[in-house]
């Protein structure tokens, strides 16, 4: 049940305080009539009040005095001063001291209703806001960034020190190393944490869409633009924009992005209104951008703009025993989610985890364990529960040909099976579309002529 708003009505004239109290009670408020300034101050901090309605002219302690003390005792408490003897001076003084309104008796009932309603609505929103912030903090208390290895501890240290600043951060690392997780951790530990965190995966968007996605567009700016559309920069205003796979940007988009970062403002496609944005940009890539700069595919000035602080996430194979900690974490997570009970991993699986190269990094590990929890029958996760077709097979193959080659072959096989449906293939491969696009590009895999 909603709590009832409590209002204190202070007036030395009995008829006024009583009639106003009676009138306000009909709105369902709990109203306490008080006969003087001193009496009001006496009970002020003993109880909780939503609004004080105080007469200006009262013997001994007047309305301004009550207002002054009330604000001292309960900062932010809304006080409405009312008087039959209004002067500009008293009105100015009341407002200066901190009254939220100054009304002249007799008061228009519609105006009073509105003012009281507005104050209570604002209080409700403020309370709701505080509650939601607490909730956000509670949700994120548990961090998914797990690891004891030196490299991960170093990363976490940098995250802690850069979070509070507004500096751009470039997060590098192989696919699946948890770049977005790091970006989220930076956002959550920054002063922007109650504002939006907007992630956009540039690699997943066709070139022509990137600009409209980032900067928005006006209605009619291109064929199919039937509505005006807010860009991610606008959506992230006040918060953090995470640009994933920033290495995939075309040179045109790179120029536009650089301009936006420098001017801290953008224009929607087809629009001529300058939109100011207060956005912190975090970027991520699995490419070596230095190499792209040398090759002339990535602008050096943009690189320095994005890479004010650089964080490199090591691949899982270089993180030693972290793989076991992560495996334990994912096992607990999926067991809880699927309501299953698993004690841990068999010694063979642990050996495999430590020897395997994890080309898909943490994402691959997570998917492997999710699968194991689904298919596994025994209390310990067995080798046969692993999705590598018996586990050992992959290890054996690894010695014959490179993993790169295995992955390429497998991707091509899945793509051919699905008739080159990228979404379905990505789903089957348990990777996201953007990653698949990248792999197709990197491996130079192309659609057979007869399927084009």
């Amino acid at each position, binding site marked *: 049940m909603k709590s009832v708003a409590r209002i204190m009505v202070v*007036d030395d*004239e009995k*008829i*006024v305080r*009583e*009639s*106003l109290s*009676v*009138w306000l*009670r*009909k*709105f*369902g408020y709990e109203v306490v009539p008080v006969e003087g300034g001193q009496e009001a101050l006496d009970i002020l901090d003993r109880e909780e009040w939503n609004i004080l309605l105080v007469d200006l002219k009262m013997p001994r302690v007047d309305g301004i005095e009550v207002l002054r003390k009330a604000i001292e005792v309960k900062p932010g408490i809304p006080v409405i001063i*009312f008087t039959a003897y209004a002067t500009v001076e008293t009105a100015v003084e009341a407002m200066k001291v901190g009254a939220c309104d100054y009304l002249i*008796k*007799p*008061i*228009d*009932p*519609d105006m*009073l*209703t509105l003012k009281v309603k507005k104050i209570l609505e604002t209080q409700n929103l403020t309370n709701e806001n505080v509650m939601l912030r607490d909730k956000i903090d509670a949700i994120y208390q548990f961090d998914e960034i797990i690891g004891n290895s030196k490299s991960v501890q170093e990363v976490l240290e940098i995250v802690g020190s850069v979070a509070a600043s507004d500096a751009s951060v470039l997060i590098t690392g192989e696919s699946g190393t948890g770049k977005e997780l790091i970006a989220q951790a930076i956002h959550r530990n920054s002063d922007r944490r109650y504002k939006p965190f907007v992630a956009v995966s540039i690699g997943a968007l066709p070139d022509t869409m990137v600009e409209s996605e980032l900067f928005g567009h006006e209605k009619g700016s291109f064929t199919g633009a039937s509505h005006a559309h807010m860009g991610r920069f606008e959506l992230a205003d006040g918060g953090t924009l995470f640009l994933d796979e920033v290495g995939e940007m075309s040179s045109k988009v790179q120029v536009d992005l650089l301009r936006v970062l420098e001017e801290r403002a953008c224009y929607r496609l087809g629009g001529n209104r300058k939109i100011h944005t207060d956005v912190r940009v975090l970027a991520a890539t699995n490419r070596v951008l230095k190499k792209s700069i040398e090759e002339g595919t990535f602008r050096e000035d943009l690189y320095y703009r994005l890479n004010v602080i650089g964080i490199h996430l090591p691949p899982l194979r270089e993180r030693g025993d972290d793989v076991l900690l992560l495996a334990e974490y994912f096992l607990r997570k999926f067991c809880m989610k699927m309501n299953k009970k698993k004690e841990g991993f068999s010694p063979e699986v642990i050996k495999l985890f430590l020897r395997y190269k994890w080309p898909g990094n943490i994402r691959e590990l997570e998917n492997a364990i999710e699968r194991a929890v689904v298919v596994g029958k025994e209390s310990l996760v067995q080798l046969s529960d692993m999705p590598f077709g018996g586990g050992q097979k992959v290890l054996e193959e690894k010695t014959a040909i490179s993993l790169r080659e295995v992955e390429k072959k497998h991707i091509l096989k899945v793509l051919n099976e699905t008739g080159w449906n990228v979404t379905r293939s990505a789903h089957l491969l348990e990777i996201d579309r953007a990653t698949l696009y990248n792999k197709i590009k990197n491996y130079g895999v192309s659609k057979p002529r007869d399927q084009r």
Partner: protein
Amino acid sequence: MRPQELPSKLRIVSLGNTPQNAEERAYSAIQSCFGLNCELLSPEPPPEFALDVLRGQCNSLEILDWLESRFPQPDQWIFGITDVDLAIPVLTFVFGEARLGGRSAVISTFRLHEEFYGRPADTLMLLSRIEKEAIHEVGHMMGLTHCLDRNCVMYPSNSLSQTDVKSIKLCPDCRSNLYS
């Protein structure tokens, strides 16, 4: 606040000149909405005893006091209709006044006339407003407070547009509160 028990009778009385059929319309509206046993009394004189000469308005609370002493039977409620302008000291005007969970109420037709706002008279409109105000104030006597539903007759109206927008009925929530 809830009334101790429903009255054996709700008595309706006009104080001074009131628009034609005002009491009858209030009578049938109250009866059909709350199912109370109503009775029309002979008219009483205008409430000059409550007049604030400086403001040219009558104090609605004093009228309630007068009604309660003029018709003191504790098991009967008393509902006044007047054509004088009503106010309480702290507010510029009220359309009506009732004791919340009490046994008296009064409404004024003064500001319900179209003519008050410089528009041509509209009797149908006037009578419909009287019905809504009557049900609203009796709702307070029954212990109902204001409702947030703009269509509910218990929505607070401090202007005619609010009165005209709301319906003549209690919303389901208010109706269930009535008998809870």
